[in-house]
């Protein structure tokens, strides 16, 4: 926080959405129902890879209560979607590439009838050979999953001369790390509600992470005028990247247009597991060299990322794997080669950390291995190589803005857990029966990740503030509240500038009909970008109300003071409340603020779950599709966490703020891997690590 006295910013404030969430009144997308609505259910592919010879819907259509059964033949547009590359069919045509592919869409009077109808659709499949090993995808003779081949994206970068770097080094370590597929497992599965009015205007209230892009994707896939599509997506029950790509939206639009009735689609938990995007499985080989004094001199990285059946965000995720392959360290000689490929293994896309997570598991393990070989304190090794403000590092990112990595390392070095780690580790070696089988390890890991989308991509946010006749204001902001608390943070920013109590600010979230496009709710960018846009909008708003008041009071605007819902003259003799200003204004008082994230190579930036969760696939089929087989941490696994914030204000952010979201979740898994090694001397290079794997590893040592 930039030093200063604030009324709202930096204060512990109750979330604006907390009360309606604890009393059950807040409507999530899955909470919308209407009499006479149609329930949609999706028929998913029977095989992970097959040709579709024919689809027969006649029997399903005869089932009483079935309203419609739709296939690709009912779609007029390109029938494709995808954030980066439109290669995924809304409804499959002649081929399916993973078990989550949508083949047909049933609309029925009840969800039970819709479910029953799915069994009556006859699809004639011809199973095709599978591509499930991403290494095979790179081979010339591999079966091709898409016309353009199996490579979604590849990146190659060199700086300096790694061969020479290795020659002059005292220590070279080389390991291969394998990170697993993981599920977002948000509590509200994908859901939405659609209706169409007499003018053909579609209104879709759904889960999502970018209402304006969803609108474009629907228009493109169905060839429906974009201006006739209104997306409303303010709240959703968790997302973590998993609702960034299209889920229910296009299917909802199709069903509403075909039936003319209100429609609801809500994926089951099992359907979520098999159809949605996941965290990418990535294999990373790293060869890293250092001199005796700890200076890193060379680093070679080979990365292979399994994207599954369709592109979605595989390309950008690979970019982040590559960008983060050096961690937050300066290494003069670097070579990195990375590929993202198609397979029949489900589908992977955005997930908290977005590739940085996987890269850090590898790099932070390498750092500890090197530290041990050199007999160095692993934190000192990191400090020695730490990037600092002004540095150019990694694949050429420039650290131009506020950066507190070295300060964070100094803080960690001084922390009692690190200082007294020997004592803490040995505390269990007391010979008691209770502690006889226990070992304790202390681990450390670091991470770096930025706020925003990255160089070359338009990255902006816009906020509108308007005055109501009762003296309250409406704040329109097009980003989405997925649980991170940004609607509250943005309101705090507005309250501070307007000097208006938070309860007098009505927040209107993501709605393409009312809010301006503010980009995606991803990449740890919302508090930074939308927060700053709101600050600018609020300043513009204050200027406007001062103008109105100045005219009414017969003074110059520059002499007026704003505060507590009123504008006063400097001498305190004249004053107008916001409500009076609203009445005095000749036209509605409305101000906008737009913020573009500065064009700079800002380094970009679910920890514990990464350690032990895994989507298990066999031959393209998901084996654990429920929350009793895909185990997420429960209250028993909740760790105690102590946070020691190191605050370095970012002069470009609202009141010095920068989003925190992803970067703090990334080091958790490698820190625990390092702690496991510290405790039992076994180095795990493959995630997940489960109790069973640890026992098996200990058996081997014996």
């Amino acid at each position, binding site marked *: 926080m930039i030093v200063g006295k604030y009324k709202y910013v930096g204060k512990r404030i109750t979330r604006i959405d907390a009360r309606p969430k604890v009393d059950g009144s807040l409507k999530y997308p899955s909470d919308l129902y209407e009499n006479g609505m149609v329930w949609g259910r999706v028929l998913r592919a029977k095989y992970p890879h097959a040709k579709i010879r024919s689809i027969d819907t006649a029997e399903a259509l005869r089932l009483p209560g079935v309203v419609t059964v739709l296939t690709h033949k009912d779609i007029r547009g390109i029938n494709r979607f995808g954030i980066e590359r439109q290669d995924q069919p809304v409804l499959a045509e002649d081929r399916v590439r993973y078990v989550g592919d949508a083949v047909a869409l049933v609309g029925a009077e009840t969800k039970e009838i819709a479910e029953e109808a799915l069994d009556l659709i006859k699809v004639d499949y011809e199973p095709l050979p599978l591509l499930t090993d991403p290494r095979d995808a790179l081979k010339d003779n591999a079966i091709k999953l898409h016309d353009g081949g199996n490579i979604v994206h590849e990146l190659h970068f060199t700086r300096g001369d790694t061969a020479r770097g290795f020659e002059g080094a005292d220590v070279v370590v080389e390991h291969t790390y394998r990170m697993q597929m993981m599920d977002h497992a948000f509590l509200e599965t994908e859901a939405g509600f659609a209706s169409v009015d007499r003018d053909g205007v579609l209104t879709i209230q759904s889960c999502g992470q970018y209402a304006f892009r969803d609108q474009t994707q629907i228009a493109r896939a169905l060839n429906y005028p974009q201006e006739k599509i209104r997306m409303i997506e303010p709240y959703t029950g968790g997302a973590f990247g998993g609702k960034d790509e299209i889920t229910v939206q296009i299917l909802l639009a199709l069903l509403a247009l075909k039936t003319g009735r209100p429609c609801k689609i809500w994926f089951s938990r099992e359907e979520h597991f098999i159809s949605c995007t996941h965290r990418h499985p990535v294999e990373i080989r790293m060869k890293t060299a250092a001199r005796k004094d700890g200076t890193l001199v060379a680093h070679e990285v080979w990365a292979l990322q399994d994207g599954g059946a369709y592109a979605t965000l595989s390309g950008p995720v690979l970019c982040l794997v590559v960008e983060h392959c050096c961690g937050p360290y300066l290494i003069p000689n670097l070579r990195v080669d990375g590929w993202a490929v198609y397979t029949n293994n489900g589908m992977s896309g955005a997930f908290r950390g977005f590739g940085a997570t996987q890269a850090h598991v590898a790099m932070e393990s390498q750092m500890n291995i090197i530290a041990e070989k050199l007999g160095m304190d692993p934190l000192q090794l990191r400090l020695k190589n730490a990037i600092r403000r002004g540095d150019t590092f990694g694949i050429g990112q420039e650290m131009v803005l506020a950066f507190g990595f070295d300060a964070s390392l100094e803080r960690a070095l001084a922390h009692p857990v690190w200082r007294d780690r020997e004592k803490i580790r040995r505390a269990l070696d007391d010979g008691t029966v209770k502690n006889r089988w226990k070992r304790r390890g202390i681990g450390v890991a670091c991470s770096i990740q930025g706020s925003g989308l990255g160089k070359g991509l338009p990255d902006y946010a816009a906020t509108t503030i308007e005055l109501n006749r009762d003296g309250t204001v409406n704040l329109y902001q097009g980003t989405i509240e997925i649980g991170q608390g940004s609607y509250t943070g943005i309101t705090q920013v507005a309250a501070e500038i307007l000097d208006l109590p938070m309860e007098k600010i009505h927040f209107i979230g993501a709605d393409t009909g009312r809010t301006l496009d503010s980009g995606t709710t991803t990449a740890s960018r919302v508090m930074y970008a939308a927060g700053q846009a709101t600050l600018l909008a609020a300043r513009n708003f204050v200027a406007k109300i001062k103008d109105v008041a100045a005219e009414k009071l017969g003074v110059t605007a520059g002499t007026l003071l704003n505060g507590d819902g009123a504008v006063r003259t400097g001498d305190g003799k004249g004053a107008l409340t916001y409500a009076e200003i609203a009445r005095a204004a000749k036209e509605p008082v409305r101000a906008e603020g737009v913020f573009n994230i500065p064009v700079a190579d800002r380094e970009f930036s679910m920890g514990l779950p990464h350690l032990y969760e895994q989507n298990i696939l066999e031959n393209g089929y998901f084996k654990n599709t429920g929350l009793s087989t895909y185990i997420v941490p429960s209250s028993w696994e909740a760790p*105690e966490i102590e946070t020691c914030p190191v605050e370095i204000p970012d002069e470009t952010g609202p009141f010095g703020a920068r989003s925190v979201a992803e970067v703090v979740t990334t080091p958790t898994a490698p820190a625990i891997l390092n702690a496991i090694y510290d405790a039992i001397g076994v180095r795990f290079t493959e995630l997940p690590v489960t109790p069973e794997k640890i026992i098996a590893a200990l058996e081997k040592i014996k």
Partner: protein
Amino acid sequence: MISVTFTVNGKTVTVGTSPTRTLLDLLREELGLTGTKEGCGKGECGACTVLLDGKAVTSCLVLAAQLEGREVLTVEGLASDRIGKALQDSCVESGAVQCGYCIPGFLMAARALLQENPHPTLDEIKEGLSGNLCRCTGYAKIFDGVRLAVRRLAK
């Protein structure tokens, strides 16, 4: 089709329904009480937890035919209850709410816990809430919320 009469948040309701319809669907689709959430439909996540005759149950596993004459408390009725209101207030203040989708289920499970054990230890709170999943908070602030409610109720 059967007709069942039971009470929800103190009000008597009679609904005509299939005997295998779940309590969760009745609440959400027939009675408009969407505060009770569905996260899995299989009793695995706890999001649909309500109180049935004072005991916490996952409403997706309770069928209509089991409801005759019984008493259901949902999150919408929680504010009229001393323990429930304290839990709601404490969870708001402690920052236990993020995306908030799991919170109604947690509040109901915590309400059942505090009814049986007004002074739970941290481990007893963890045990009492172990049937409810949360993906945002890491649970710590939910525990804080329950402990704050315990302290307030003791006064």
